[in-house]
């Protein structure tokens, strides 16, 4: 072991010990002090009720499958549409100018409208025009509402990514004889998309939570199911249980994204 490595190992041990002790102290304080608060019993029985938790957990988990499903089929649509809008906004072909205008209006419009309103408007409004079943399903149109909103955000994120790529990259590709299309596809987009992964991850976490807005137009997903239990049992523990389930997904997801990005970076140095 070199002198430097030995020094660093010592430093690291020391840092780990300090971190461990301070964490233990904080945890101990929370565990010991909070129950001493006068209202703790009441709070515990209405928010952290073990019996209620166990009773509602399986049903909430089942409802959460719906959240995951809606999320899963929304994401590819959001990214496909977001990309199309970003490209429409970025095109410089005068013949496609209307497309460019459309992209700009689309982004302004759907970023400006609250998601809830869009969920109601699209979820009730479009089926109300007289679509037959199953094409009037709130699952379909609720998803459409989410896709409209989120693709507008994703389009802007992607566009900022595309614009952040140095012009010389485009020049290099064009000078090799690559078409505009291939330049975008093989040179600009791969770099742009990588650059906006963090922004898009935040978007996905937000989307996972906004999926719950679909419950406004009928589907019984996890937050609605928790709400039903809340009024049935007059207890808020179902929401806590729902939060636990959400965290089980979102925390690893964000950590995984961080990991991917770090790996990407480490591979380069």
């Amino acid at each position, binding site marked *: 072991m070199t002198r430097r490595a030995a020094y660093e190992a010592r430093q690291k041990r020391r840092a780990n010990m300090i971190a461990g002790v301070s964490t233990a102290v904080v945890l101990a304080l929370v565990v010991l002090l909070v129950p001493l608060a006068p209202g703790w019993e009441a709070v515990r029985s209405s928010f952290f009720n073990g019996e209620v938790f166990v009773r509602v957990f399986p049903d909430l988990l089942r409802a959460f499958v719906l959240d995951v499903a809606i999320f899963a089929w929304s994401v590819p649509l959001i990214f496909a549409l977001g990309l199309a809008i970003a490209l429409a906004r970025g095109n410089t072909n005068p013949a496609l100018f209307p497309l460019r205008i459309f992209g700009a209006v689309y982004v302004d419009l759907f970023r400006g409208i609250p998601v809830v309103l869009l969920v109601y408007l699209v979820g*009730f409004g479009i089926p*109300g025009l007289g679509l037959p079943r199953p094409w009037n399903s709130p699952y379909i149109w609720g998803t459409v509402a989410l896709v409209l909103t989120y693709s507008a955000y994703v389009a802007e994120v992607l566009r900022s990514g595309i614009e952040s790529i140095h012009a010389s990259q485009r020049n290099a590709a064009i000078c090799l004889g690559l078409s505009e299309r291939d330049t975008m596809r093989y040179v600009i987009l791969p770099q742009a998309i990588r650059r906006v992964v963090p922004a898009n991850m935040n978007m996905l976490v937000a989307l996972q939570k906004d999926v719950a807005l679909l419950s*406004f*137009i*009928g589907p*019984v997903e996890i937050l*609605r199911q928790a709400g039903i239990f809340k*009024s049935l049992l007059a207890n808020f523990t179902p929401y806590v249980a729902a939060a636990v389930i959400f965290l089980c997904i979102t925390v690893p997801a964000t950590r995984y994204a961080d990991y991917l990005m770090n790996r990407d970076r480490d591979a380069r140095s």
Partner: protein
Amino acid sequence: MKTFLTATILSLAATGAFAAGHCAAGKTLTDGTLTIATGNPAYYPWVLNDAPEAGEGFEAAVAYALAEEMGFAADAVTWVRTSFDEAIQPGAKNFDLNMQQYSITAERDKVVDFSAPYYTAPQAVMTTTPVVEGGATATMESLKGLKWGVVASTTALPVVMEQIQPSQSPLVYDDNANITAAMKAGQIDAALFDLPTALFTAAVLMDNGVVLGQFDPAAAENPDQFGMLMPEGSALKACVDEALAAMTENGTLAAIEAQWLQEATGVPLIK
């Protein structure tokens, strides 16, 4: 002679007063008169044609039956109008009783007095004419096959899940407006409301709303009950409750209900 006559009239009047209820005597706003408030306007099927004096419509009929039970002749009943909210505020009132589908709740009970319930609202099934034309009937069998919508916070969801047990899982909403929107969008076939709400929603909010049937209210766990509203600390409450108990006992109330709320609205019981 004159004295005798006066005495006779007085004694007659006194007899009349006693006849007008040994209980209610002296406890009404105007002696010998029962002042009852209704909505402005008053709605079908509670009051027909906005004319409570005719005694037609469920609440109008209950009012006259109650007055009779308490010893007031029909012409001793005076009607006044109040808005729904104004009557529920604390403060002096210009009526002895107010009837306009007030649900008895603990919160309201803190600022006003309620009589014993004169009506227990049953759960009713609202749907649309296309669904009825599609073959839906007021039978459990038929209801199972429908796509249901319910409001999350009401007791409707357990009723749908446990009694109807539909073949498709129901959709759940925050409020009646959303249910109406979903029904207009064709996303749900049927919704469960209390009967009065169902009647109102079908008639006013929907273009093609139909109340398909109602559940026997006796079977409900936590039913919505209507009470007559009286000023806080009303001396009349005991008399009204006594009269209502008698009317329940002798079947008067049930008969009025059958006449004005089942026959008049034509909402059959679900079998």
